[in-house]
């Protein structure tokens, strides 16, 4: 069964590259441009993993994460947080809120894809 990944990021160019890579890796990709949109999508369809940018308009990534973790049905969902802010405070905050991983931008695509694969229990898509 194909796994679903939701990309929540307001930078279109990042979305483009991630979408491409994920599709190449065989995942179905959903896209949300802001936090609100992300929550709406989550209501309709629960992905297996969400790539969550912290700096999202309307509803921030942290809030979305909290929502996800509060929701009983979505407990199984993996959350990888993305942020340009790499300070320890931010990282611990994210992890405390329940993110499974925290990746700082700019990232190496190899590392991000490897993290995605690990979270989903799949072999890495990029050598």
């Amino acid at each position, binding site marked *: 069964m194909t796994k679903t990944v939701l990309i929540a990021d*307001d*930078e*279109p*160019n*990042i979305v*483009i*590259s*991630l979408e*491409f*890579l994920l599709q*190449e890796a065989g995942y179905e990709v959903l896209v949300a*441009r802001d936090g609100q949109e992300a929550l709406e999508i989550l209501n309709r369809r629960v992905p297996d993993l969400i790539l969550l940018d912290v*700096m999202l308009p309307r509803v921030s990534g942290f809030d979305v994460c909290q929502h996800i973790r509060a929701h009983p049905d979505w407990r199984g969902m993996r959350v990888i947080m993305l942020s*340009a*802010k790499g*300070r320890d405070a931010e990282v611990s905050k994210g992890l405390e809120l329940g993110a499974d991983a925290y990746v700082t*931008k*700019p*990232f*190496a*695509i*190899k590392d991000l894809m490897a993290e995605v694969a690990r979270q989903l229990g799949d072999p890495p898509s*990029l050598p």
Partner: protein
Amino acid sequence: MLLGGVILLASFVYLGILFAIAYYGDKRADAGRSIIANPVIYSLSLAVYATSWTFYGSIGRAAVNGVGFLPIYLGPTLMCALWWVVLRKMIRISKVHRITSIADFIAARYGKSALLGGLVTVIAVVGIIPYIALQLKAVSASFEILLQYPEVVMPPKGRAVALWRDTALYIALLLAAFTVLFGTRHLEATERHEGMVAAIAVESIVKLLAFLAAGIFVTFVVYDGFGDLFGRAAQLERTAPLMKFGDAAGASWTSLVLLSMMAILFLPRQFQVSVVENVNEGHVAKAIWLFPAYMLAINIFVLPITLAGLMHFPDGRIDADTFLLTLPMAHGQEALALFVFIGGLSAATGMVIVETIALSTMICNDLVMPVLLRWRALALVRRADLTGLLLTIRRGAIVVLMMLGYAYYRVAGEAYALVSLGLVSFAAVAQFAPAMLGGMYWKQGTRNGALVGLTLGFAVWGYTLLLPALAKSGWLPISLVDDGPLGIERLKPLALFGLAGLDDISHALFWSMLANVGGYVAVSMLGRQGIGERAQAQLFVDVFTRSDHAARPWRGSASVQEMMALIARFLGSARAGEAFAGYARQRGWTSAAEIQPDAELVCFSENLLAGAIGASSARVMVASVVKEEPLGMDEVLNILDEASQVLAYSHQLEQKSRELEAATAELRAANARLQELDRMKDDFISTVSHELRTPLTSIRAMSETLQAKPGMDEARRRQFISIIVKESERLTRLINQMLDLARLESGGADWHSAEVDLGELIEDAVSTTAALLRENAITLTVDLPPHPPMLRSDRDRLLQVLLNLISNAAKFCPRDGGRITIGLHVRPDVVQVDVSDNGVGIDAADQALIFEKFRQVGDTLTGKPQGTGLGLPISRQIVEHLGGKLWVVSAPGRGATFSFTLPLEAQAGPASVPAAHKTTSPS
């Protein structure tokens, strides 16, 4: 014949009794149970005024002048009326200031002047010597006469008697020894001699009784009462005129009354008994009528005895002076005669004792001690025990006085009747009146005034009274008196400046008082008082209105131990300890050890010592302990100066501390601001890094993807590459703008000033953005006035602003029908440029937001704004730097108009100074 032995025995017994009384009186005083605290005793002690002059001399004078003897007693009687005011004030002042003699009083009043005290002492001594001589004459004459009983003969006159045979000499020696024993057994802090007062009171009684006895005998035994006596006298030519008041009144009486009024106050013995020995001011009230009563009693029989004597001894062989003695003798009354002799002796000894004690105190305290203390060679100040020295000085003074009295008696005693001798002394002590009365009632009286007055008065007295006395006795050429010195008639001692017709005494009184009062008043009014003097003047004159006697301001340091040691040297450690303990108790301390050394202690010590050695010497001694720095006007001013400086300094300090507080508050605020700026900087940095990382992320992701997927299709490959290029551009733009903004904000940007044609500038901007506008199908309208103005400004920067505004407008124009209008308006002092679009508009909340760094609001072109968010902040910085303002007017759905103004006049500030902002270093 009355054996000399009997007389002598009687005399010694009497003197012994007196001594015993005095001893007992002193013992009771030491035990604290005074026997003289009694107004009757006080009044009786005042009667020491009546000496052998009263006893014998009055009768002698009455024999010549009739009632002319009275003025001497009228004076004091009149003075008694004033006693309640004058005497009480003197007593109060003396108690408060521990005054022990007239010299002390005058010296203390005029600034504790030792010179003045010495002068007064000299005048007193010289003046009283005739009086002492009078007593000696009376006692020796009466002794001689009585020795001849039952014959009534006069003793041989003149210097015919050899020295060692002269009764008077032995009497003088005897009296000296008696007085030494009597009055100088120990030093009294208060110079009070209670025993002496008791003895004097007894003497007053004895002499009164003796006189009365003789008088009663003569009047009621020899004759049949007053009526009989006067009746018989009126019939005789010799005695008749004496009963009339005829030529009695006049200048003579006036001057005698005045003299005696002053004498009752200023004779040293009177001052001693009425002021110094006074134990209670209230006694004065009784004395005011008791004393005149005594005077009356003792004078009742003067005239009767005179008349009787004249009638009994008509041939003038017998001196009228001796009637009181010779009458009883003539009538065979042995006992009465002896009693009268004892009475006369009593009167004389009373005077001598009190007078010499008073004078010796003055000599010791005000004449000898000041000289000795200042005589550095003796180093008296450092001697441990001075009691012995003081007593020795006093005893010596007493002996010297008696000897001087005797000398005067031998030299000039014979020439004058007794009364005249006494009046000479009266005139001498009258010289103290101006200085003393002036000192008590006139604050303006100065020391120099007193000095001059006293000196002049004394000089005139000596010239008009003493000199003639010596001349008439043959010690000076009589031509001095008759013709004046060097033959100058105007300067005749008995008729100065031609004032003849007055008796000697009146004449002398007039001139001496004139000189004295004149000198005193004139010099006082012309002169100035020192601080100490002024303080003393106030203390004396205002003694009834002041309840305290605070010391004048002083600076110094003292130790209580040193003070006590000093006092002990004079009064003995027992008395000193008592006094200090009393002082401590008064202050509420439990013992003398707790006493605080301050100005009050110094004052107390001075007063304590003044009782023993006089005020001026006390000052010297205390000053030596206290290391006082005497204050002159300069020093007081300095102290005031210091005080005001200290005040000013403390004001300054207050002010400084206030300023310090303000500065601290400012510093705290600045620190808070800095911390906030720090936070803002941190935020800024994190924001900046975030902004930079975003395009970097795209670039990296795209690049890596291209690398990882070589099999990517061409279209996608081209897309990715173009994204990389665009994002790189974006990144570059971002970095450039951030640097630009940083430079603008910090003032490190370059500014070039030139003439700018606004119209041409706008056209330039339009053509630069033409492609963008064409791409987005935006129509542009430019609305320029006919003659756009020229500006001095930075062209490139203005272009930057215009481009920014136009591109913003372009971003926000709708996809179709986007319209941009550029307007230029010229106003009096500024020119305004407007850039309007017909986009979605900006709501009020965002209008402030858009001018913040990195902040953008949504536009219609893309979901996410592609700008850097720095354009408007930069534009605003530029416009404000050029002296204008940049703002937006907009409403949602109604488009937006960005306007900025520029001043038409070239700004004096930044715009015209190209490198103004470059330097930031403080030098």
